[in-house]
Every structure is written in structure tokens, then in C-alpha cells.
């Protein structure tokens, strides 16, 4: 079984910041907008290097999305930065009309997604954003798993022409994908080979899935772990190929089970290869204050939850 090493916990938002800093040097059309959260989004370096291409819009997210849409006219590639909650739900109609329907090349970069933003509580812990964004025609939806992948994705979306939602988080999580690795939008990454069960995970739950698969391996359950960084367009082919071998699947995400990765996978399987599936996701609920680890445990998102889901789905084969 292939194993992965955590080279040291790092926050995914810093991966975004590092990617944006690099883009500032390599792509003069990249501009960045922020709604009063420069430090949280790690946009300081870009701002320092390119003050003329950085736009502080204040606490006015609706205006920020409209500005970004307008800036594309004349060839700029705007990256907007704020928390996931204020990047999506708060500005849904602005994204829908001025960005998605208008086909504008805006990159909506969202930090602090999910319950793991922690102590701030449910007002800030959006668990519905993947659903909101994937429902918009033409929107690409990406949820990266670690620092290195977030940096790579940030670089990759600048090369993609069209609106993108890039979701990442606040806490420091395991960093295990290759430094300066490739990032292909819409392409699943198979991390381990397995025969008994497929585990499809997104975001930092990919690491939880890898940890779960190690424990499962010790009890003789061979799990195939797939990192789905792009939820839309979904790599149906990779998923179908894997379940054709394993015969059952667990999906894992820090998101409501309604509207998330699990539902996208279920649709693909219903259409092409009906397969028993269990969902590791929040159960149509809001979050609450707590530490990230406490919340992951309480809301059933950690490696234990993944192991339990595997055992459950195996019985349904």
C-alpha cells in the first residue's frame, strides 16, 4: 500500500497566498480584490508587490463581485478573496448574473470554508457553498486538500478561461501532496490502489481518508483513495472505473450531504453504475463553536467517521 508523508501541517489559505504571489510575478493580467480580510486570505504579499493591481473594496462583497466582473472587460483576471460564506451565499445573485451568466473570467477564492474555521461558529461556517456554486452553469468548483495543492490550483485557475470557485480553509492541515505538483482541473488523483472499497474525498478530508485507509488495511480492508479536488466538472470516469473494481464507495467532504460532492458522485453512479454509497458529510445541520478537531469529531467528518462508513458500505455490497 502506497503511503504518504505529512511534511508538516500548513494552512491551505497560505497555499493560496503563495500561489497568488507567484501569479503576481508571472502574469501581469492578474488582479486581486479583497473585502477587508487581507491577512486572513494571505494576500499581503501580492498587495505589497503590486499595489496598483490590488483593490481593497472594504466590507462590501456584492460590490467586489461586480467590480471583478467589470475588470475582466479589458483583459484582467480578477481573483476575489474573502471567507467562503461571504464569497457565495452573501453574493449569490451577483455571481449568478454578473459572473456566471455573463461568462466572466473571475476567480472566486474562498477561505474559512466549513466547520473547521472553528470558534467563530455557525454564522461563518458555511456548509452549503459547494452546492450553491456547482449549480451555476459554467462554474468550475475546486476544493483543494492541502497547502501544496492549493498553491498549484491557484496557479492553474489563472490559465483556465471562465469562472472558478476555489474553496480552501483556515486551519493548519497535513501537507502531503508534491511541492510544485501538477494540477489538472477536472482530473481525479488516485492516491492508493485498493480492491474492497473506493473512498472519494475532497478538501482536507483526503488526508483523513488516507489515515483511515491505513487503519482499515491493518484489519484487511483494502481501500482505494481518490482525491477529487475538482467537484465540477467531476471526473466521472475515474470514479466509475474504481467502483467497477471495488463495488462500493464512501464519499467524504466538509459540507452538507445535500448539494455536495457526495450527491455529484451519486448522480454519476446512478446514471452509469449504480453502487452502494455512504456519505461522510454534515447531516443537514449548521455548525457551532469549538476547535476544528472537536467539530470534525462531533459532526462526523474525521478518519473514524470514514472508517465507520466503510464498514457500513461493505455490508451493503
Amino acid at each position, binding site marked *: 500500500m502506497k503511503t504518504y508523508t505529512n511534511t508538516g501541517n500548513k494552512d491551505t489559505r497560505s497555499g493560496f497566498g503563495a500561489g497568488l504571489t507567484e501569479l503576481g510575478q508571472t502574469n501581469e493580467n492578474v*488582479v486581486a480584490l479583497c473585502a477587508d480580510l487581507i491577512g486572513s486570505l494571505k494576500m499581503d504579499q501580492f498587495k505589497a508587490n503590486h499595489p*496598483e*493591481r490590488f*483593490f481593497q*473594496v*472594504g466590507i*462590501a462583497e*456584492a*460590490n*467586489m*463581485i*461586480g*467590480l*471583478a*466582473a*467589470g*475588470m*475582466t*472587460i*479589458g*483583459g*484582467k483576471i*480578477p481573483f476575489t478573496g474573502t471567507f467562503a460564506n461571504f464569497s457565495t451565499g452573501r453574493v449569490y*445573485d*451577483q455571481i*449568478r*448574473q*454578473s459572473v456566471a*451568466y*455573463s*461568462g*466572466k473570467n473571475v476567480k472566486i477564492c474562498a477561505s474559512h470554508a466549513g466547520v473547521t474555521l472553528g470558534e467563530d461558529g455557525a454564522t461563518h461556517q458555511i456548509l452549503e457553498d459547494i452546492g450553491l456554486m456547482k449549480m451555476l452553469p459554467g462554474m468550475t468548483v475546486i476544493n483543494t486538500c492541502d497547502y501544496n495543492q492549493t498553491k498549484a490550483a491557484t496557479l492553474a485557475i489563472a490559465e483556465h478561461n471562465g469562472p472558478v470557485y476555489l474553496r480552501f480553509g483556515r486551519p493548519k492541515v497535513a501537507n502531503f501532496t508534491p511541492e510544485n505538483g501538477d494540477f489538472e482541473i477536472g482530473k481525479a488523483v488516485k492516491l492508493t490502489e485498493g480492491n474492497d472499497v473506493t473512498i472519494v474525498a475532497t478538501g482536507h478530508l483526503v488526508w483523513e481518508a488516507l489515515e483511515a485507509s491505513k487503519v482499515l488495511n491493518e484489519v484487511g480492508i483494502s481501500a482505494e483513495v481518490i482525491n477529487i479536488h475538482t467537484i465540477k466538472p467531476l471526473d466521472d470516469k475515474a470514479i466509475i472505473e474504481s467502483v467497477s473494481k471495488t463495488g462500493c464507495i464512501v464519499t467524504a467532504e466538509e459540507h452538507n450531504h445535500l448539494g455536495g460532492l457526495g450527491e455529484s458522485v451519486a448522480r454519476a453512479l446512478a446514471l452509469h453504475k449504480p453502487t452502494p454509497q455512504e456519505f461522510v458529510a454534515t447531516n443537514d445541520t449548521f455548525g457551532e463553536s469549538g476547535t476544528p478537531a472537536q467539530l470534525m469529531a462531533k459532526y462526523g467528518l474525521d478518519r473514524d467517521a470514514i472508517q465507520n462508513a466503510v464498514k457500513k458500505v461493505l455490508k451493503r455490497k
Partner: protein
Amino acid sequence: MPNIQELEDLTTQVRRDILRMVHKVNSGHPGGSLGCAEFFVTLYKDIMKTNDGFNMDGEGEDLFFLSNGHISPVYYSVLARSGYFPVDELNTFRLIDSRLQGHPTTHEGLPGIRIASGSLGQGMSVALGAAQTKKLNNDNHLVYSLHGDGELQEGQNWEAIMYAAGNNVDNIISTIDLNGQQIDGSTDTVLPMGSLRAKFEAFGWTVVDIENGNNVEAILKGMAEAKALTGKGKPVCVLLKTVMGNGVDFMMHTHAWHGKAPNDEQLAIGLEQNAETLGDY
């Protein structure tokens, strides 16, 4: 100096286009469209400097953004009669498979349109973004936008208005169609907005009044004044006082024709009041 008679003749023809477009599909928004006919005609025929053909990026030319997208009939008529697409295509307004959607959109690739609008309150932010890109590109052309007065009830406008002054976006002229009407009645009865001049000035904009926004010469004069005020560190707002339904007597001074099409008889009266000048499509 532009030929006033030519602009007025085109305005009359545009009014006919508006009436015929909404009548044919028994839907659309004639009131605000008629009220802004003179403004659109002067904007596209004289005030704005545009390149031949249509390029989405619009570099090296002035840009226009319509925020209150429901007045699409006047927009489509003037775009067509400015050469952006065939005038005959006005026949397809609001029909299935048309590029002339109920509200303007880039989605079907209609030349002349750079952003979708219709859900209100979003256009000023977009126009400001385009204006800032012009500055980054060292393109000294201007960005124009049009907004309904009732539309200013949407909060996003005030985010944008605050941003524009705070960031010295002085290459934009945002015009407010001050017709005093909205769907449910007069703006004063629905939600009084007080003095828009005072509000814009308090937010740091320079304000120009055009008292007779249905008079071509007054518009030319007022917009020239507005243009002269750009590049001085402040965004420019034009308060364009218009009469909703202008040019069709029974549609004037009321919100009743905001989103209602004339029947056959009403169309005939409206067309009689606006004799053909340049030829119907």
C-alpha cells in the same frame, strides 16, 4: 455640432421600434424605454467614442453599461440602428432562440452587450470595474452607465457609490434616469429617496443635472459638461430628469406602462404620434 434634426428623427424611429417590439410579443417594458430614447440616441450617436465593430474588451473606446436591464427595447433599438447587429433582428425580441433576450445578456453573443443585467443594482459595480481596468491599461476613454432611480433602492449601489469616490474613479459617468416611477407607483410613495444630489455629493461625487432629459440639446449640453468634469479625481453622476413613456401621450407621467405592452389599438395611436422617419424594421 451634431445635427439635432437627425438625432430627433432617430429618436422618433426608436420610439416606433420600442412600441412595435413590445406589442409583438405582448411583453416588455415600454415606459422606461421611451423615457430614455433621447439619452440612448445622443449617447451612441454623439457622446460616446466607439470603434467600428464589437470587441468585448472595448480597448481604445468608450464603454456603456445598462444596469436597469428591463429597458432593453430602447437599448436593442439603438444598438441595431448604430450598426451593432441587423435592424431586422429587432423582430426576434423575446422570442425563443433569439439573441434579444427579455433582459440584455452576453450569453447569446449579441454584439454591443458586455454584461447581463436585469437583476437590479449590479451595473455600477461592473462599470467601475471596467473603468479601473481602463486605468490599468492606460486607456483614457470613459465608462458610461445608466441606472433607474428606483433601482438605487438596491444596497449594492451604495457600496459602489462609496467605493468610486473612495478610490477616485474619475473616468466614469453614471447617469440616473430620474423618472420618479417604479412598478408599484411613484418612487416617493414606494420608498422616498430624498435628494439624490445631496446623497451623491455626500458620497463624494460631482453631480450634473439635466432638467429636461427628453430634450436632445439639453442632453448634449449636460453630458458635455459631465465629460469635462471627468479626470478630476471624482466620479461624475448625471441626474437625468425624464418622463416615463415620453412621446406616447397615454403612457406619459405614470408607472402603468412600466412593464405592460400596448394592444393593437394603443399601438396604432402610439405609432400615429410618432411618424416613421428612418423606416420600420
